[in-house]
């Protein structure tokens, strides 16, 4: 029997958003679900997310958003990913993301936004699906 490849996810926060609780919780639930998490913690720039995703061959970048900095950093990250020709899915999570912002983030190319209502299973299933889609595209 062939085992499914393990999804690789880079998790972190932008700028000086210091509310790390959500990122730590999500990291552990993704690891419990059998994924590989490269945990960057706080203080990251779009350049760093893109570089680590590339170096680590990750399929997904997951960013925990608890300050409004993400509204400005995410478009910069999407731009960076495009200019580096990276194939990686970006997902966001956090209660500060309002419904209107979630819509504009998806329009900017974000693959999924997990609001306060997202369940553990939703997050795991969606991230696993995104990782698989990226792997298939890369093949």
């Amino acid at each position, binding site marked *: 029997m062939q085992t499914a490849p393990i999804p690789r996810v880079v998790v972190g926060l*932008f*700028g*000086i*958003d*210091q*509310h*790390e*609780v959500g990122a*730590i*919780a999500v990291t*552990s639930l993704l690891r419990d679900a059998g994924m590989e998490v490269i945990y960057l913690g*706080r*203080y990251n*720039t779009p350049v760093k997310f893109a570089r680590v995703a590339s170096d680590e061959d990750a399929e997904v970048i997951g960013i925990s958003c608890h*300050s*409004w*900095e993400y*509204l*400005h*950093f995410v478009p910069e990250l999407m731009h960076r990913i495009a200019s580096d020709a990276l194939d990686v899915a970006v997902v966001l999570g956090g*209660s*500060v993301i*309002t*419904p*209107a*912002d979630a819509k504009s983030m998806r329009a900017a190319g974000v693959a999924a936004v997990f*609001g*306060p*209502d997202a*369940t*553990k299973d939703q997050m795991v299933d969606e991230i696993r699906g995104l990782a698989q889609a990226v792997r298939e595209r890369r093949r």
Partner: protein
Amino acid sequence: MAEQTRSGIALKPYYTREDVTCPEIPETPGAYPYTRGRLRPPQAAPGWIHRDLSGEGDARRSNEQIKYLIGLGQMGVDVIGDSPTQSMIDPDHPLVRHSVGTQGVSLCHKQDYLDLLQDIPLERTPVSSSVPAVFALTGLLAVVEDRGFDLNKVRGSVLQAPLYAEDCGYSSGMPFPLLNRLAADTIEFAVKKLPRFHAYIEDTYFFSESGLNGVEEMALGFVEIRHLTRELMRRGVPVDSFAPRIAILVNCGMDFFEEIAKIRATRRYFARMMKEEFKARDPRSWSTVITSHTSGLTLTAQQSANNIVRGSIQGMALALAGAQAIEISAFDEAYRTPSEEAHQVALRTQQVLQLEAGISKVDDPLGGSYYVEALTDEIEQRIVSMVAEIEARGDAVALAQDGFFRKLFADASQRHYRLVSSGERPVVGANCHRIPADQDTLLRDITEKKIEPWRGRIDEVAGYRKTRDRDAVGRSLRGLLQAARDKTVNVVPEVYGALLAGATAGEMAGAMRLAYDHPYDPWGELRPDF
């Protein structure tokens, strides 16, 4: 299964006098061990100080906001810095360009403090601040001296959290020994120069927001109080000179009676500890002031209006427990830095509690309740045991360096997440009694409003650097570096001198980090320029 409190204390179906250690309850409010409250000053109006956290944009914008809140009936000023200010990073640092002025006020040089407090009457307005204490204190000092105001009359407070700030959202990239020294230096300085100022608010609020329960919150708070008390006494500062100026800023979550009992137990343990263990003789050293902020962690992004109800219940618990100052988290806090509308509701909640419900007419109205007294006893015992358990592990600064506290916070946040996501801890609107997102529109327009980064501020500070006397700034920063290297010196006068010379908070923090062989800029972008 028996019901239990958030801290895991098993509850009986009802309580009787057999459950209370001291059934006659001979204690009166205002008497040792102060379970029932501090002595109410004879001339004071009943009630508590109504405050709301403020600060956004730059100092001038925040000054307008403070005046607005005072106009609404707020009795004190409570300022929080934006994330760069809280982290001691200047607004023109590349990492912070999208966070200037959005979550608080941007403060980094002397003129900021003058602008922030312009026209605020210091004689009747205590100035409290969550900004890193050494800068909040020296900034206020600059205002006081600029106005020629009497140092003996300055009221207000600063927070100290040297053991936990680094792990709980206010990291400044400073080593723990430096953070602890700065705490002791500011307290010692204030004790000598600003006798009415509270230079030591033990802030158990922010770190308990990681998901700690009430017992854990207060045990860690006491570990820090005891650590700093020992350090100050080691320096020869008499306990009776600083203990009366210690206040505790506690959290208040949704477990109504446990929160009340927690505050009562905290006052009692503080009194016993100061009197019996640290041998304080002045009764004012035994009775600590409790200030409070209601829990942001208990608020939900879903059905924001429910947060107003939560704030009322928490505010009522705090009033019944005899808190001296109360801040109620704004209903939109799950989404954003509080809006003006939400600020107003939070303040009105307190006014309704006091003026309409009349809760503060009598001190400690729940005193003598079998349940509340039994819970108070049990919580105090649990706090005492947890403090002993932690102290048995060794020096608090070493524990912080080893990540012992970091692990406690991480475990607590995991536990909170598990309890809420499994539904074991009901949260109305979030894990039960939900409504579809497209129907969840009440007050939604307010949560969608944003505060844009205060980008003009970045240029303003860059411009400020050019107007300074470079030699004077360089000299003052070198002086600060030198003073910080000598562990026997109090650095506050050097920080104040550097502030007056035109140095910024980021530069001063960098100089002090260098003195402890840490990088000038832990985020790797800047180099010292002095």
